[in-house]
């Protein structure tokens, strides 16, 4: 062995490590996300950041694309073989991160675990509840029996991440958070997790689908809006989500940055007190005396309040264009949205006329409540609505409170009118219809977030028919009919649908998702192929 060979060896090692270093940098993605992940256990807490991280580590039987349409995931195909049976054919050759093979047994195990996670703050059990019986036909075919026809099965199952029967037999939520149990079939493995601070991932090179571009991903939680923007500008992170609207103009103008946006599924709306026919607590006449009959029960008054609002001005001036004016639950094109049901044009004159017809030519006084820390610009929006209502003679006081205080009061029907939002995770209209405008019914699980207690038997009847209809086209027509009734009646008053915005350094590209999820597999180098 001479010096020569040594030198060559050294050079080779050096060269290797150098290229590896450059490669490593190029293949690392550092993301700054605005909402903290509360748990790695995919069945513990239904929360967008948790779901996003779940999508990186785990897979469901079905999934959704960027526009919230259902696509195959661990199930290659599915069909309803009779009124109450769904058959799923599973993908073959899929392995968990620890090498264990994915089979129908794992799915059955998962469905058992989902409703039984202890202390779950918001359980995923609602997605598995309709399943009465799981029948394993063979290792990769599964039949799910329901008591009544259940058309939403493939949609719902996109929320349920599949775990391994052997690995996760006695898995606890703490086990997931600590790391050892964070084993799935997804495109990334979790390397480390510091609660509320950061998660590190590395690519799952044995992933069955399109492999993500990034070898390593740093998922940092930066909850302060200004700090997150500053981290991107300083180059500490490559990519951020939840771009504050006040920074949009500046970031758009910055040559070093790129933005990606998509119309989301979160509706910001006003809810009214429908629960009282007698006086409503925050409505008075112009002298401050309670009005014996709740004016908000009168559809003409609600229509007047809707006509008073210039949604375009709110979107343009307050949301900085990061929203679209809304006339219904979902943006056009979504399943169950009504074609042509646009946001009403502002018409102060027409609004005053309607008020006069309803017996309030001089208007009345109202307090509009809302949160000040939940939705982008929430307290600014209610002030703007206050301006517009005051101008038609409904003198409005505005009260913004922290979310926890506010939502508790709204949930106890203590308020007369308030701003709140709803993210339709399923991307189809039955979800908001059941949750926001169906009559409150604890046993059916309907109207769970119907805090104004709107109740219209016609809506309930059409919705019930839709929920029994397995034929997609017929079901969509019924959902559209119910939606139309709700908004003609102004059961709730839609303001706008938020756009989801992400910002990244030049050289990165992102496939935006309507469901707000921020996932590393959706980010790729600009100019490269799609990664999904």
């Amino acid at each position, binding site marked *: 062995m001479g010096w020569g060979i040594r030198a060559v060896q050294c050079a080779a090692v050096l060269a290797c490590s150098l290229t590896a270093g450059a490669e490593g940098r190029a293949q690392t993605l550092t993301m700054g996300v605005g909402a903290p992940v509360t748990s790695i256990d995919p069945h513990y807490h239904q929360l967008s950041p948790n779901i996003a991280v779940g999508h990186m580590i785990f897979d469901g039987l079905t999934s959704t694309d960027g526009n919230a349409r259902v696509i195959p995931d661990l199930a290659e195909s599915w069909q309803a073989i009779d009124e109450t049976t769904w058959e799923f054919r599973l993908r073959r050759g899929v392995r968990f991160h620890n090498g264990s093979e994915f089979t129908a047994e794992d799915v059955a195990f998962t469905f058992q675990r989902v409703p039984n996670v202890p202390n779950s703050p918001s359980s995923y059990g609602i997605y598995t509840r309709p399943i009465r019986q799981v029948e394993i036909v063979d290792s990769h075919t599964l039949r799910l029996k329901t008591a009544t026809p259940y058309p939403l099965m493939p949609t719902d199952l996109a929320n349920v991440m599949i775990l391994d029967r052997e690995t996760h037999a006695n898995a606890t939520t703490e086990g997931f958070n600590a790391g050892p149990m964070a084993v799935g079939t997804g495109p990334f493995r979790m390397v480390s997790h510091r609660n509320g601070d950061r998660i590190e991932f590395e690519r799952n090179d044995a992933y069955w689908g399109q492999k993500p571009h990034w070898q390593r991903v740093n998922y940092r939680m930066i909850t302060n809006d200004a700090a997150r*923007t500053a981290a991107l500008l300083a180059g500490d992170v490559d990519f951020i989500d939840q771009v504050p609207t006040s*920074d949009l103009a*500046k970031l758009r103008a910055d040559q070093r940055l790129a933005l990606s946006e998509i119309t989301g599924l979160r509706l910001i709306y006003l809810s009214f007190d429908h629960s009282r026919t007698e006086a409503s607590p925050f409505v008075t006449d112009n002298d401050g005396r309670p009005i014996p009959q709740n004016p908000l029960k009168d559809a003409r008054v609600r229509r007047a309040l809707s006509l008073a609002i210039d949604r375009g001005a*709110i979107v343009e001036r*307050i949301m900085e264009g990061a929203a679209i004016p809304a006339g219904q639950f979902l943006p056009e094109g979504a399943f169950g949205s009504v074609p042509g049901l646009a946001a009403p044009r502002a018409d102060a004159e027409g609004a005053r006329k309607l008020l006069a017809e309803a017996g309030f030519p001089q208007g009345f006084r109202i307090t509009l409540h809302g949160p*000040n820390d939940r939705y982008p610009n929430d307290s600014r929006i209610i002030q703007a609505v206050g*301006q517009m209502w*005051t101008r038609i003679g409904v003198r409005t*006081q505005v009260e913004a409170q922290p979310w926890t205080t506010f939502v508790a009061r709204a949930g106890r029907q203590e308020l007369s009118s308030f701003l709140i939002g709803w993210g339709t995770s399923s991307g189809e209209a039955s979800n908001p219809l059941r949750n926001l405008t169906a009559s409150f019914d604890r046993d059916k699980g309907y109207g769970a977030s119907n805090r104004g207690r709107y109740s219209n038997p016609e809506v309930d009847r059409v919705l019930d028919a839709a929920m029994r209809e397995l034929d997609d086209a017929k079901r969509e027509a019924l959902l559209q009919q119910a939606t139309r009734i709700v908004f003609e009646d102004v059961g709730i008053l839609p303001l706008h649908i938020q756009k989801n915005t992400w910002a990244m350094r030049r050289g990165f590209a992102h496939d935006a998702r309507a469901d707000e999820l921020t996932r590393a597999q959706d980010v790729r180098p600009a100019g490269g192929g799609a990664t999904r």
Partner: protein
Amino acid sequence: MSSTTAGAPPAAAAARVETPFRRFVSEFAESRLALLGLVVFAIIALVAILAPWIAPQNPYDLAQLDIMDGRLEPGSVGGSGITHWLGTDDQGRDMLSGIIYGLRISLTVGAGSAILACLVGASLGMLAAYAGGRTDSLIMRLVDLQLSFPAILAALMILAFLGKGILNVVIALVVVEWAYYARTVRGTALVERRREYIEAAQCLALPTHRIIFRHLLPNCLPPLIVVGTMQIARAIALEATLSFLGLGVPITEPSLGLLIANGYEYMLSGKYWISFYPGIALLVTIVSINLVGDQLRDVLNPRLKK
């Protein structure tokens, strides 16, 4: 100035000099800076009092605001024809009007809470000094407890409990500030009550309340005035902080702190004026009060006499 007798106790000096007020005025006017502070403060107070007549817009009347006028640059003309010399905020509120009305809230809250805290604190301090013994210990331990707590934290806790609103802000400020007055008054009163004139009053068997209010209290006033002035400035700053954190006034009736909070999100976007001008107004107010307070302390403190 010529009649100043060095080393004489203030009470005695005041009793000997023919026109103590004139002497006080001339001593105060020795500092040009303090005079300037007084003039500026007088102007600010006048502007605040006359707000409804001089502000171009009533910034608390939602019907007069239009979001289409939102975030206009200083000097632009809005849809209603008003020239916004200091620009507008995100709701289309004229910043000049917002600041004028905001000063009104700040001064009311500052002065109101200082006077109330002075009443509560001075009474308790006087009681502690005069009664002594267990009452004294109890009150002074309460004072210690209060002073060991960061004021902002205590105020936050009180507001979280009471809820928002101007009255609640005043209550919170009184609760966090009374201790300063109590300590000051007790210290002075302990010295004063051993003096001959109190002993004389006691020998005459005057009723206790008469001794306290007619003899002891007036002689404790000078340090109380100094603390009071400083505490007004402190109360204004504290109110601004609470409003900035979203716990003070209602969002449709912004004080200076809330105006600053409304604007600071737009700082990165270059819309400086929403935070900047209310900030300047707050700064000028507090500095002018402090200048006056500093000079008052110098004039009223015998140990600092030349």
